[in-house]
């Protein structure tokens, strides 16, 4: 429930003429616990029970300043970051007219169907968004987003254009490294009619990552004059692209949710990643059981090492080959879960997941449960 406060001036004497604006505070929280099977690891869980990994608290503050202007800030504290709070959303909104709206600031990148509220577990049935698809290492950008919403007959159209940059960390070879994605430009378009919704997203950006894991190898290659190979491996203003498709059906208490994504970074060793999931659920009053299947299909780029000269030291060739081949990933995941709406603004969820690497045949199983709520 929203708490409305009448805000007063920022306690400064220096500016005059500011009238108090309405401030609305609401929020959401998730408390989740999970434990993988003996010796398994999945989604940050090990075989010890963990309450922090996916728990989070958030407070959202919104203020309507009138004259089409409003401001939104979301303070989010994740258990996995020791509940240190940061502004996950921080943007201004200017409602240009009935159909056009401009957001500026720190925004959610519109990669996925549930990008805007992937932290708000209450907003979807699963215990977590399908990780095979929702696995890009960053969620936010700083920049501008222009929204257009309209309807054609009974078809609702939501169009979003985005421009900005990401400056933070990215996970490379299991380690966080300083990353910059410049000139991010993208579009997402969602069409919905009654019980069916279709979504499309396409984004591009210039990817630069300073990875200590990579620099040893690329420096060696450069020293040997193999700068072309080095450039095929590193992330130095290389064009990254993201393509996403989504389909949702919600009819007669049957729920079908599906997304497909393709991610690649040209001139880098980063795999061409195809992922999808299909989820089917059914509402029985306040109980919603569901089953979902996820697929990771990441293709490595052996053409990078195919061009290495034969007379190279074998350990260097092996190093490049090992790096490139490590990107290959063929993985299936099944999830079986239940959402129980025990309260008007809270849901209990339990989900069992089992993942199998199709190459190594390694299997990881995870049981997790918890409560998602909004206030």
């Amino acid at each position, binding site marked *: 429930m929203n708490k*409305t406060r009448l805000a007063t001036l920022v306690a400064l004497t220096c500016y005059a003429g500011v009238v108090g604006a309405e401030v609305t505070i609401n929020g959401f929280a998730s408390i989740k616990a999970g434990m993988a099977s003996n010796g398994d690891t999945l989604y940050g869980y090990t075989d010890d029970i963990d309450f922090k990994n996916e728990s989070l608290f958030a407070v959202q503050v919104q203020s309507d*300043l009138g004259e089409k202007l409003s401001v939104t*800030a979301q303070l989010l504290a994740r258990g996995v970051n020791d509940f240190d709070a940061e502004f996950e959303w921080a943007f201004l909104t200017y409602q240009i007219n009935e159909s056009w709206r401009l957001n500026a600031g720190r925004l959610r990148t519109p990669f996925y169907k549930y990008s805007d509220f992937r932290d708000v577990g209450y907003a979807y049935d699963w215990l977590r968004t399908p990780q095979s698809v929702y696995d890009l290492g960053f969620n936010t950008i700083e920049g501008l987003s222009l929204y257009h919403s309209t309807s054609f007959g009974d078809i609702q159209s939501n169009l979003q254009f985005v421009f900005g940059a990401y400056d933070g960390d990215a996970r490379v070879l299991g380690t966080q490294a300083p990353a910059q994605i410049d000139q991010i430009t993208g579009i997402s378009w969602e069409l919905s009619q009654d019980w069916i919704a279709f979504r499309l997203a396409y984004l591009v950006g210039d990817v630069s990552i300073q990875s200590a894991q990579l620099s040893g190898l690329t420096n060696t290659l450069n020293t040997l004059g193999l700068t072309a190979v080095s450039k095929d491996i590193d992330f130095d203003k290389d064009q990254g692209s993201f393509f996403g498709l989504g389909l949702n059906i919600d009819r007669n208490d049957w729920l079908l949710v599906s997304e497909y994504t393709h991610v690649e970074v040209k001139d880098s060793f980063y795999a061409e990643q195809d992922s999808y999931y299909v989820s089917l659920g059914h509402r029985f009053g306040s109980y919603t059981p569901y089953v979902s299947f996820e697929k990771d299909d990441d293709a490595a780029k052996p053409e990078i090492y195919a061009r290495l000269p034969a007379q190279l030291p074998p350990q260097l060739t092996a190093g490049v080959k090992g790096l490139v081949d490590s990107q290959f990933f063929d993985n299936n995941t099944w999830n079986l879960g239940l959402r129980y709406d025990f309260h008007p603004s809270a849901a209990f969820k339990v989900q069992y997941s089992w993942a199998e690497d199709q190459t190594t045949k390694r299997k990881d199983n995870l049981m997790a449960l918890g409560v998602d709520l909004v206030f």
Partner: protein
Amino acid sequence: MKKVLLVTAIAACFSSFAQAEIDVSGFASVAGGKVLSGSGVPGFVGPTFLATYPTVAVYEEEWSFKPDSKFGLQFSADLTEGLSATAQLVGRGADDFDAGFEWAYLSYEVNEHWTVQAGKKRLPLYYYSDFFDVSYAYLWIRPPADNYTWQIFNYTGINAQFNYQLSDWTLSGNIYTGSEDDGSNKLLSDYFFKEPVREIWENIIGGVLSLNRDWLDLRLTYMTYENRRFINDQPRLWNDGTDTRRGKFMGFSANIDYNNWILLSEINRLTLEGDDFDTYLVSAGYRVGQWTPYVLYSDFDSPGEIHSTSSVGVRWDFHSSAAFKLQYDDVTDDSLAGSEVAGDSKAISFGVDLVF
């Protein structure tokens, strides 16, 4: 007493927030910019516009919306009987929007002239220090980098504020003491030394005196402190062989807002180990309806580090509590070899500042 307890209990319990005597307000800035051209400092940084020193707000050659963007939420609770509590939570793009308490203090109003405060506050060195993050409150996109250079900008301590009316003049001021122990100082660690630097300013004693009447605003500031520094946990020894050096800061500003003309000026000097670090700014603007075009010049001069910035811009008050700003900055770095900061640069930035 019962009321105080009630308010405290409610403040600790968010779900009962609506009943508490707590005011929530805030401010926000969203700005984007880029370096148009710049020399950088060979072997140190590429083309860079260092827009704010203490937070290491850096623009480079690609568009970035982080350096000058920030959000602040302010909570103040009136506990009655003269007592109030204030907390300000700020997230800056330059800090990856990590949320931290910039202000956290208690105020006790002794009488109509004097208020005593204790806790964490902004170190009121400069004219714009107190509202540095609230960009809506001033003309430019940001107070000029050449002036607002010092790596410590908060302190924890106690201060006494006063306010007197003397015929047409308002006389106000602040006397403060405290310290700051910054375990990992951002400017020194991330920018200058590139290794962990713990910066301590202690035995801070300072005062501010302001005189205002109608269109004239004068301000005097003085502060002295002791500085210790640990680089990679090793104490830095100063010229006299000890680990502590005393700094003295003094400044004067005069601002005029008359017949739509705005004239702003500030001059400051920090003395450390016999060296003077002199800074000043001059700025002029003219209000035409919602539009205020302005020019700004700022300068930093010390034995090794010498730089200045010429800026031109416009503020557009398109909304009763929000302003759009566009600014062009041209930085000249004439520092001696080894003391350069970021080299010469020309940069453009624009953004919206608001309060709520």
